[in-house]
């Protein structure tokens, strides 16, 4: 079974958390502290949970997704997206009613290519926000494949940020 691993990257205020392996309650406190830190520092325009490489998420982590989405909403950042194509995970997400709170997409690559027309409006519509987030996700993935953007290990980030 693949070891749980969560990494993070950011593009213009859109934060992507990439889950891989079997992510269980042992990882949850670190992810939680990391996201709390993001919100405390402000400047969260969108949250994308990329579960494409996740084998499984346990109930503690599913709960964390919902709580973080709620926190994003309180901060007037109303874009929260889940990228997932694992059927098992999708069934669980649906059984918990997540599709009503999150934008759930199966593949970020299939998004319209020309998003350059989207101008920063003071109050972006839901669809505009969706496009922006998907574009950010796509850009980050492309960059990370070419090795120009390193997804940072969330746990390692926390360890380096802990005051001693």
């Amino acid at each position, binding site marked *: 079974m693949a070891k749980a691993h969560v990494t993070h990257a950011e593009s213009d205020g859109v934060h992507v958390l990439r889950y891989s392996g079997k992510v269980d309650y042992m990882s949850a406190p670190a992810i939680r502290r990391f996201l709390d830190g993001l919100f405390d520092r402000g400047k969260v325009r969108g949250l994308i949970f990329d579960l494409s490489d996740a084998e499984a998420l*346990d*109930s503690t982590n599913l709960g964390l997704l*919902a709580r973080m989405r709620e926190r994003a909403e309180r901060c007037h950042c109303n874009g929260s997206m889940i990228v997932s194509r694992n059927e098992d995970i999708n069934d669980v997400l649906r059984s918990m*009613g*997540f599709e009503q709170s999150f934008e759930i997409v199966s593949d970020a690559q299939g998004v319209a290519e020309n998003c350059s027309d989207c101008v920063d409006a003071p109050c972006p519509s839901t669809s505009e926000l969706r496009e922006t987030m998907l574009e950010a996700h796509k850009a980050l993935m492309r960059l990370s494949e070419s090795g120009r953007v390193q997804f940072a290990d969330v746990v390692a980030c926390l360890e380096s940020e802990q005051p001693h």
Partner: protein
Amino acid sequence: MRESAAVLIVDDDSWGRRAFRHVFERHHYQVFEAEDGASGMLAAAEHQPNAVLLDLRMPGLDGLDVLGALVRDFPDTPVIVVSGVGTMQDVVEALRRGAWDFISKPVLDPEFLVHAVDRALEKAALLRENRDYSESLKQANQRLSAALDELRADEQAARQLQFQLLPEDGLRIGMHRFYRRLFPSQTLSGDFLEYFPLGDRHSAFYLADVAGHGAASAFITAILTTLVSKHREAFSTRDDPTILRPAELLQSLDADLRAQRLEKHVTMFYGVLDSATGRLVYGNAGAFPFPLIANGDDVVELQNSGRPLNLPGSAGFGAGETSLAPGGRLLIASDGILELSPKEGHRARREGLARILAKSHDLSSVLEALALEEATTLTDDIAILFLRREESHG
């Protein structure tokens, strides 16, 4: 330590003793002398030296016997044998009897002797430290296991309480018979279930799964039980109908749990059965896998689900209605059951469960088909509720 270290020289040769004394004193050792084995033993007892230099060939007691006595009486004191008749057999015998080192006479460079003693003292100090360390570890370990025993006893008591709260296995309420099993992955489970009569005509049941497991989750199952029994009481004393209406009950439990400000969500399936007609009204707050209902060989999943209790989100709770024919069965299990064969995907597992239910008319055959026994080691808690509508009265 070096300043106050004392060495005892046991040798019948007074010239040799004087030469050794000289070199050790130059290295700030305190020096004691003895000229034979018997006085050597006395001096060792009196002065408690840090090390002993022992000649093997002396008048009186045999050197090897003195060595044996010294090692026996002062096991932590290094004894270095310095002997003129250094046959290999002597060396082996001396080391076998506990000598720390063997140096043959004549000693050409007396400094070598000092080094040998220094080294022996270092080794003795390390051994002593090591022993003190093991001793303190042993004590810490004893304190830890005492604390752990206490925790285990607490958990055991809580577990007993949790199991006592479970309803009777095989209980019949009106036309329906209920069975249950709880398999905790740790001592305490975050899964829980109950079934009970409501008035003369109805019975109700639920299966709940608190996120996580262990004591904190078990504690929330206890809160949930209390909240449900509050509604049962309101029904019996004031005819409050909430407990008969799954959607309303889930909403009320959700509000009460949110008020507790506990960051753990709860999935829950709650159903109310009409004994006379077999009609089932249910609500589902995120319970997965979906409950299975079997009428004859026909098995369906009750797929109406929704947001778990105490979880943020805009989704409502799932609700629906169906009915059980005589001989009809219903099976609900917490999601730990999907972990039983991790190689299979959830969908295959759910289909497998449906096939099992189609052939099973009691819980034990379900468990048998799942190869689930009390001793199974689990990664997640599993709670299972099985109910059957009887064919006829009696």
